[in-house]
C-alpha cells in the first residue's frame, strides 16, 4: 500500500488529486514545467520537481523523466490525471516495470480501449451494441462499400480512416449519390492525410452524447455511478455537462448502466473509467468509446451521488474493495458543470492568453469551483484554456440552473477573456431550459447575438458606463499632457494607460 504519490499533471486536475491525497494523508509529489513554477499544484504539493521547458512534449509528456522523479523522491504510485500520459499504454507499463503503482487500469485495458477497432470488436463480442459501420474491417474498395451501405442504412457518413476535424467526411442520404460522394471524400482524405482510405458509419441523427461513470476494483466488483449528459459541444469539445440527463428515464438508465458495466468487464477493467454512448431520437443507444481515466466532468457525478471518485480511485489502486455496491448508489438532485475557458465567445472562441489580474470565484449554497489559477498567474499558450470548472448542484434541475445563473454572474475574472457570457446565454436559452438539445445544438441553432424573447437588456446603463470610461480617459490624457499637474508619476500613467489597452 502506497503512502506517497506523484501527480503527473498540472492545472485544476492536479489540484483536485492533491486534495484527495491530503484528505487521505498521502504525501504528494508534483512535477512542473518551466512555465508552471508558480502554478497552484506546485504550491499545494508536499514536494515539487522541475520536468523541463514549457512545451508539453518536453515536460508533461516526458514519461521517462516523470518515472525517474517518482523513484528519486520515494513516491510509490503515479496518478496521471486526464490528458497528457493518462491513456498511454506504454507509460502505464513503464510505471509498473519501475515498481510503481499506476492509478488507473491495467496497460492491457488501455490498449484494448485505445484502439477504436479493437474496442468496438471487444465490446461487440460481449453483446454491446456499437454504431453500425465498417470501421475495423480494413480498407474496403468502392464496390464493397456500395454493397454493404444499404445494410447499414441511410443516412450514413463516409469518414476518412486517417481523419479528424471533419476532413474527408461526407454525409450520404441515398445509394444514388454515394459513388460521387465517396470519390469526393477519398480525394479530400488523400490531400489532407495522404491516405484515401475511408469507412462507413451510420449517421445517428439528433444524437445525444451520454456517458456512464464506472468504478471497478481489483476483486472483480464493477459498479456504475449513473450518466452525464455531454451533448453541448463545440468542435467536438465539451462545454457544459449535466447529470442526470434530461433525456433518460429510469428504465433506459438501468439498461445503459448494465451495458456500461458489461463493457468494462469485457476488458477486465480496473479503476475509474467512462463509457461513452450515442443515443438516437428513438432512444437506441450505441457504444462509442471508453475513456480509461478520470474525466474532466467527474464532479457532477460526485455531486449527485456523494461519491468522491478520486478517493475511490486511490482506494482501488491500493488494492482495497470498492466502498460501495451498486445498490448503495443513490442519486440525489441535479448537477451542472460549466467549463470556464480562456476564450472569447464574441470573437469566434479565440483563445485568450494573459495574466489573471483579479478573480472572484462564486461561492454560496450548491456551488463548487475546481480551478488551478489565482490572481497573478499567467494563462499561457502552451496548455489547454480551461481556467476553472464551475459546478452547481440543486435539489432539482431547475434549482441547479438558478444557482448556476447567479454563480456565473458572480464570477469575476480580469486579465483574460472567458466564455462565461456563453454559459450565461445558454442558461437563458429556452431549449436548454427545456432540456431539448442534441450534439448539433451549439453549432447549428445557438447564437450569442440572438437574445431570447423577454430577456431584459440594459443599453442605457451600457451607454452611461462607456461614457464615464471614455470621459475619464479623455481627462487622463489631458492630464498626461499637462506636465506636473498630475497626482502620480508619468510612468504610472503610462502603465495604467497600457493596461487599459491590453
Amino acid at each position, binding site marked *: 500500500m502506497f503512502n506517497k504519490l506523484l501527480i503527473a499533471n498540472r492545472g485544476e486536475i492536479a489540484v483536485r488529486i492533491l486534495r484527495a491525497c491530503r484528505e487521505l494523508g498521502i504525501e504528494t509529489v508534483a512535477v512542473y514545467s518551466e512555465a508552471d513554477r508558480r502554478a497552484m499544484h506546485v504550491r499545494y504539493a508536499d514536494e515539487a520537481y522541475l520536468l523541463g521547458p514549457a512545451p508539453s512534449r518536453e515536460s508533461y509528456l516526458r514519461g521517462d523523466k516523470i518515472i525517474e522523479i517518482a523513484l528519486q523522491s520515494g513516491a510509490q504510485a503515479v496518478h496521471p490525471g486526464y490528458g497528457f500520459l493518462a491513456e498511454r499504454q506504454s507509460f502505464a507499463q513503464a510505471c509498473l516495470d519501475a515498481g510503481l503503482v499506476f492509478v488507473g487500469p491495467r496497460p492491457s485495458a488501455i490498449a484494448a480501449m485505445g484502439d477504436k477497432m479493437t474496442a468496438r470488436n471487444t465490446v461487440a463480442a460481449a453483446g454491446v451494441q456499437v454504431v453500425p459501420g465498417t470501421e475495423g474491417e480494413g480498407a474496403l474498395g468502392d464496390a464493397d462499400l456500395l454493397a454493404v451501405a444499404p445494410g447499414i442504412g441511410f443516412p450514413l457518413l463516409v469518414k476518412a480512416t486517417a481523419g479528424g476535424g471533419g476532413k474527408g467526411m461526407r454525409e450520404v442520404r441515398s445509394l444514388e449519390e454515394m459513388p460521387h460522394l465517396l470519390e469526393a471524400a477519398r480525394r479530400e482524405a488523400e490531400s489532407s492525410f495522404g491516405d484515401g482510405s475511408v469507412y462507413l458509419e451510420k449517421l445517428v441523427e439528433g444524437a445525444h452524447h451520454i456517458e456512464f461513470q464506472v468504478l471497478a476494483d481489483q476483486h472483480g466488483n464493477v459498479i456504475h455511478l449513473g450518466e452525464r449528459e455531454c451533448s453541448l459541444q463545440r468542435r467536438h469539445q465539451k462545454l457544459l455537462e449535466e447529470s442526470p440527463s434530461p433525456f433518460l428515464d429510469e428504465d433506459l438508465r438501468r439498461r445503459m448502466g448494465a451495458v456500461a458495466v458489461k463493457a468494462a468487464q469485457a476488458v477486465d477493467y480496473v479503476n475509474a473509467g467512462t463509457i461513452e454512448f450515442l443515443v438516437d431520437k428513438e432512444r437506441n443507444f450505441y457504444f462509442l468509446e471508453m475513456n480509461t481515466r478520470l474525466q474532466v466532468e467527474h464532479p457532477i457525478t460526485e455531486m449527485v451521488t456523494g461519491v468522491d471518485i478520486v478517493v475511490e480511485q486511490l482506494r482501488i489502486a491500493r488494492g482495497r474493495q470498492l466502498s460501495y455496491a451498486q445498490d448503495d448508489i443513490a442519486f440525489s438532485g441535479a448537477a451542472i458543470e460549466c467549463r470556464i475557458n*480562456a476564450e472569447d465567445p*464574441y*470573437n*469566434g472562441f*479565440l*483563445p*485568450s*492568453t494573459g495574466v489573471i*489580474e*483579479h478573480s*472572484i470565484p462564486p461561492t454560496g449554497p450548491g456551488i463548487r469551483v475546481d480551478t488551478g489559477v489565482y490572481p497573478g498567474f499567467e494563462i*499561457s*499558450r*502552451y*496548455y*489547454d*484554456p480551461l481556467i476553472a470548472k464551475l459546478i452547481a448542484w440543486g435539489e432539482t434541475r431547475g434549482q441547479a440552473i438558478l444557482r448556476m445563473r447567479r454563480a*456565473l*454572474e458572480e464570477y*469575476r475574472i*480580469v486579465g483574460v477573456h472567458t466564455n*462565461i*457570457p456563453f454559459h*450565461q*446565454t445558454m442558461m*437563458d436559452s429556452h431549449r436548454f431550459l427545456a432540456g431539448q438539445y442534441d450534439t448539433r445544438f451549439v453549432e447549428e441553432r445557438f447564437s*450569442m447575438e440572438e*437574445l431570447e424573447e423577454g430577456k431584459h*437588456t*440594459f*443599453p*442605457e*446603463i*451600457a*451607454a*452611461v*458606463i*462607456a*461614457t*464615464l*470610461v*471614455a*470621459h475619464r480617459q*479623455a481627462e487622463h490624457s489631458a492630464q498626461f499632457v499637462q506636465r506636473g499637474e498630475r497626482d502620480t508619476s508619468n510612468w504610472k500613467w503610462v502603465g*495604467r494607460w497600457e*493596461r*487599459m*489597452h491590453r
Partner: protein
Amino acid sequence: MKYIVTVNEREYTVEIVDERRALLDGRVVEVDFEPVGGQPLYSLLADGKSFEAYVYPGEEALQVLLMGQLYQVTVEDEREKRLRAAAGGRVAESGEYHLKAPMPGLVVAIPVQDGQAVEKGQALVILESMKMQNELKAPRAGVVGRIRVRERDSVEQRQTLLSVQ
C-alpha cells in the same frame, strides 16, 4: 461635457455634469462610478441601482460586458461626430489591413501567397495556441502582401503576420 453615444446602433446623448451627475437624453441620473479590482472592471451605482461591467477597448468601439451581454458602444463628443460626418463615415474599407496575431502561438500554415487575391472571410493564417488551431480570416476582400512569418514560426501577441491591400 456632452457626448453622442451609440449602443448597438441606437443613439443616446450623455452629458457629464459633474462627478455625481450625468444627463441621459436630458434626464438626470445620479452616478457613483468606481473601478474595482483593477481596470477594466467597473462598478456603477446609477440612482442607487448597482451594476458591474467589464469595459474593453475595441477597434472602433468600447465593448461593454454587462450582465452576460456584450454591448458595442461608441462615444464621441460633438466635434468628433461632426468630423466623422464630414469625412463620410468609416474608412475601414480602404487602405492596408495588417493582420496581427490575436494571441501568442505557433504558425501552423499560411494557406495564401504573396500577391494572392482573397475574399472576405478567407483563412489567411492558421495559428495554434492552447492546443487549438485557429483560422485567422480576412476582414475584407483584397490582395495579400508582405507576409512576415513562415510556417513553424513562433509569434507574439499583436505581432503583424501579413497585410491585405
